[in-house]
């Protein structure tokens, strides 16, 4: 007994205790639901067997049915637009802002701090704000675009089927901008000024310094930002109920919102689980690419 106690206070036991707590936590709150979700996607689930675990095995029939839904390909396309549009927009604007704030000008870090506002705001609030900004007849965005002469007719961002998914994507770019900018700023700050000076003396102009020093040195940071961006975008849910509710006619519906609709509007939990397993496979694949791309970490 004494040995166990002393091992916990100052031996290996303490390490095991810490790791054990984390493992229990992860298994109970992430592992079990994940497995349960995968199992459910291969079962027949209805309101009567919802509370038991032993349900009839359904094979791939849930998957076949999900794929053969008329809106399936539309939703895949929307999800692709939403994910790649958001990640691309967040990354490009976030990188531009991060570079801008690396310049030494008065209050640079204070102003950069203000950008965090978008990060601390709840998605539903951001959704409501953008709902107003994007509104057709009285929205600010239309007023601005008309004011500077880019458009003549009112754009119905939320109700035009060809624009709706872009409306949500724009809101999501704004939401994720600060996160991207912050991570990229940290990466940029980690590159020593000496390297830029050496490159400058070696004859590199601004663009060459960016492409031969900044980008390669930022590789792992960029990988992390893109991988996390993918995950955050795929789990972005709040904006959809707040702005378009997936409409009109699924024209702005995406996989994660669809999964929620299956489970909690149609109460077809098996299909909801099926859609989310499909997303899981995609995220797993992306994570593998990320891990593979950062296997030769080079820094310092």
């Amino acid at each position, binding site marked *: 007994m004494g040995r166990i106690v002393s091992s916990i206070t100052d031996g290996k036991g303490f390490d095991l205790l810490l790791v054990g707590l984390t493992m229990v936590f992860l298994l109970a709150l992430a592992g079990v639901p994940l497995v349960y979700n995968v199992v459910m996607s291969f079962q027949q689930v209805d309101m009567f067997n919802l509370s038991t675990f032993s349900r009839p095995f359904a094979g791939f029939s849930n998957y076949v049915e999900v794929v053969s839904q008329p809106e399936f390909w539309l939703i895949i396309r929307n999800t692709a637009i939403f994910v790649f549009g958001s990640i691309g927009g967040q990354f490009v604007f976030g990188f531009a802002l991060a570079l801008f704030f690396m310049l030494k000008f008065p209050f640079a870090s204070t102003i950069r701090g203000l950008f965090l506002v978008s990060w601390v705001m709840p998605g539903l609030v951001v959704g409501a704000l953008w709902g107003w900004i994007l509104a057709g007849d009285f929205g600010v965005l239309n007023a601005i675009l008309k004011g500077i002469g880019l458009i003549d007719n009112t754009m119905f961002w939320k109700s035009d089927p060809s624009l709706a998914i872009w409306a949500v994507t724009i809101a999501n770019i704004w939401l994720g901008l600060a996160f991207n900018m912050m991570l990229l700023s940290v990466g940029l700050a980690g590159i020593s000024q000496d*390297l830029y*000076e*050496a490159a*400058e*003396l*070696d*004859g590199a102009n601004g663009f*060459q310094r960016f492409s031969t020093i900044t980008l390669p040195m930022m590789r792992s940071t960029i990988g992390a930002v893109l991988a996390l961006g993918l995950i955050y975008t795929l789990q972005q849910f709040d904006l959809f109920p707040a702005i378009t509710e997936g409409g009109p006619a699924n024209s702005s519906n995406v996989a994660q919102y669809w999964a929620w609709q299956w489970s909690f509007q149609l109460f077809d939990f098996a299909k909801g689980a099926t859609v989310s397993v499909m997303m899981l496979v995609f995220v797993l694949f992306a994570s593998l690419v990320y891990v593979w791309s950062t296997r030769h970490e*080079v*820094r310092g």
Partner: protein
Amino acid sequence: MTAQIELQNVDKHYGTFHALKNIDLAIDKGSFVALVGPSGCGKSTLLRSIAGLESISSGTLKIAGETMNGVPPRKRDVAMVFQSYALYPHMTVERNLSYSLRLKGMSRADAKKKAEEVAKTTGLSELLHRFPRQLSGGQRQRVAMGRAIIRNPKAFLFDEPLSNLDASLRVQMRKEIRSLHDRLGATSVYVTHDQIEAMTMADYVVVMRNGVIEQRGRPLELYDFPANKFVAGFIGSPAMNFIASSIDASGTRLIFDEYSGESIALEQRLEPNRKVIAGIRPEFLRVASEAEANFHIEVGTVESTGSATYISSQDQMVTVVQSERTELKPNDRVGLKVDSARIHLFDAKTEARIVTDAG
């Protein structure tokens, strides 16, 4: 001789801080110039101004006869070796070396060949495929040198390149850098706070303090004829002893005020009763018999490195260096002798060298 680098009335301000004050300096083609001075005196600022990494506030800077004010660093054709080496961590040694050539549009094969040549002269041939993090400090230093050499620039600028190396490697690299400079017929400006490095490597030494050039000259000139007390104390190791003194009423004897008024005959007459500072290098003081002694100290510490013995007074104001060992112990009273031709005299107020006929 034509000046390869020329600074005329150069000033540099950081906000309200005046970092370089009216610097005039001409560096001949093919010469090796060391900039020395205490920390914060503006050595790096001067070097970076030549490189173009800092802009000068006023004055003219010329490299190879062309005015360089406002020309960006990449068009000045000077190479710099940084204290941190600043190697590109994501590139192999070969790509570090050939980076500048590739930027100029040289083909990959030619650049590689050139890198191999330079690697041979700097002893890096075995390491071309390593990354900087896989190199020792001395090897990194060589890569930094190679990266500068490969460009065949108009001037080499070094900012304390050896300060991260251990003592023996530093001595070796000192020689290598100097012989490389001679072989390439290069023009080099070398910043260091180590006056031994400056004395052993340079053709000319420039001593700076607080943004001002205090003196410039050949190493032994600075040692033999320091222009003021600051330079006298900075050049030479261990540092020169300074003793507050005065000239006697007849103007022929120097009185060591701090050593109970003991005195020594001057080489020549000086203004009577003038307050001066006597500077005596530790290597020109000798422990002497009572009959010969010019003044006396109480021994404070005795240290020996084997080859040299350092005897310091209790007030730490006077140090003697001799190559013989000694029986002296702390608290012994000992007489010291100095050849009066070896005494440097500085004005007590201005601290400038008092020029005598002897020099």
